[in-house]
């Protein structure tokens, strides 16, 4: 049944037509059934450019309902252009409540961060993904990367980490750090800082990843093991800071470095604005 009962709108509920939503939901179901596997889907033109979250917005549109409460973050912040536009978009086309509070949200669409506040059962985290294929920079052929995934042939990924240590003395990759999902598929966690990787592991929330340009959806179901790749003698480590947040004093959260005047004065603040505000 089409749901077009939006006051004064010519659009279907949540922008996408029902057939498209059905197709995306089927892709999501498959993705959840095979954690970490990239499911192709028929990506649609969305009213924003590729690279701005067309994948995430389509996934959100397919799963959102009137009872949901939506939070949108961009680099951890609720008040950046992208976050504000997508939040307003869904408030208008899906008639949902929006929030900036992590605890209150049922769906959190995110770009480049996982909220600091631990997620709980029933929450869904929707990631915007630019390049879903973790092996892309190592193997340009799509047919070959699919074979490598199918046969679980992941030596080449380890080669890239080896190369990083050989050149920099440590694994220098700090974002989009490759992970092994459920001991089977290597997955790109989207360009979140590696600081957030441990939060993906056995998270009680459902994680959905949407890549609009590449037209792929993949997922990590709740409580699924997610392991960051490493070497026995160069174990995975997250970023640390000697400073604490200038606004809330947090020593545990991911900090952004800001230049605050022409003299080059620097300030460290939480990247997660909601977390920071709730602590002040």
């Amino acid at each position, binding site marked *: 049944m089409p749901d077009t009962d939006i006051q004064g709108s010519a659009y279907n509920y949540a922008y996408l037509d029902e057939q498209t939503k059905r197709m995306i939901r089927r892709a999501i179901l498959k993705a959840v059934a095979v954690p970490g596997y990239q499911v192709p889907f028929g990506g649609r033109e969305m009213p924003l450019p590729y690279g701005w979250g067309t994948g995430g917005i389509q996934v959100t549109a397919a799963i959102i309902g009137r009872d949901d409460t939506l939070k949108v973050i961009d680099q951890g912040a609720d008040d950046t252009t992208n976050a504000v536009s997508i939040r307003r978009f869904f408030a208008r086309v899906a008639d949902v409540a929006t929030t900036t509070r992590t605890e209150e949200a049922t769906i959190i669409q995110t770009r480049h961060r996982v909220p600091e506040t631990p997620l709980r059962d029933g929450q869904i985290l929707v990631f915007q993904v630019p390049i879903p294929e973790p092996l892309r920079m190592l193997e340009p052929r799509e047919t070959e990367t699919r074979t490598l995934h199918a046969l679980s042939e992941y030596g*080449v990924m380890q080669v890239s980490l080896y190369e990083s240590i050989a050149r920099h003395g440590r694994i220098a990759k700090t974002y989009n750090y490759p992970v092994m999902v459920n001991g089977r598929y290597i997955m790109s966690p989207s360009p979140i800082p590696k600081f957030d990787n441990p939060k993906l592991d056995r998270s009680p929330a459902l994680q959905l990843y949407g890549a609009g340009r590449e037209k792929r959806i993949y997922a990590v179901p709740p409580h699924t093991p997610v392991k960051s790749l490493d070497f*026995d003698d*160069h174990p995975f480590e997250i970023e640390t800071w000697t400073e604490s947040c200038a606004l809330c004093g947090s020593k545990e959260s991911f900090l952004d470095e800001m230049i605050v005047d022409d003299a080059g004065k620097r300030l460290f603040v939480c990247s997660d604005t909601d977390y920071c505000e709730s602590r002040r």
Partner: protein
Amino acid sequence: MRGPLLSACGVTKRFGGRIACRDVSFDLWPGEVLGIVGESGSGKTTLLNCLAGRLAPDGGSVTYETLSAGIVDVHHLSEARRRLLARTEWGFVNQDARDGLRMGVSAGANIGERLMAVGARHYGEIRREAIDWMTRVEIDADRLDDRPTTYSGGMRQRLQIARNLVSKPRLVFMDEPTGGLDVSVQARILDLLRGLVEGLHLSAVLVTHDLGVARLLTHRLMVMQGGMVVEQGLTDQVLDDPQHAYTQMLVASILPV
């Protein structure tokens, strides 16, 4: 008495109406080096690719005796098993080292790739192994972190050999390993290969058009012409007393120095 390591039986490969190799049969015994010689276009490389499981033949079969699972038909294995075989028990040395190496990563990563592919996860040990192999193929260990793009042709070829041998294969396929290298570099690589083949008890199938290389490295020789094997036998026998007219012509056309 153990059976042959690799057996080809009536291997035939067509490309459309053109027959690249026809009804090739032979046995390769453990520790043996088999040479395949013939002019360009005689089907040597196609045959090698069929043997190594890279091309599916149109007729005939290739069987290989694995370490763990007994005798298998190379072309009836699942792709996963075949690829596993190719990166553990087998090696493949290409004529152009660029085809066999990852040019974008360091020599150490190139050598370590096979180790990591089968589960090595200790950086220090992978590196030690890589240094060991650099020394064995006579490349300075301090070039370990350099990319193969900065290597000379001969060094690249030696690196490719090390990258293949690090997983301790039992069988190595070589497609003109010394093609395109100058004579003194060729001689050093041949010397190296001969030492490695003997030291590691490798079996090898070597494709070459250079009878000198065949004489130095191989125990047995197959001469191919137009996709057919026209003569085969012990290398010295074939080269010193060629029976087939084409082999006689081939031997006669070696330039005297």
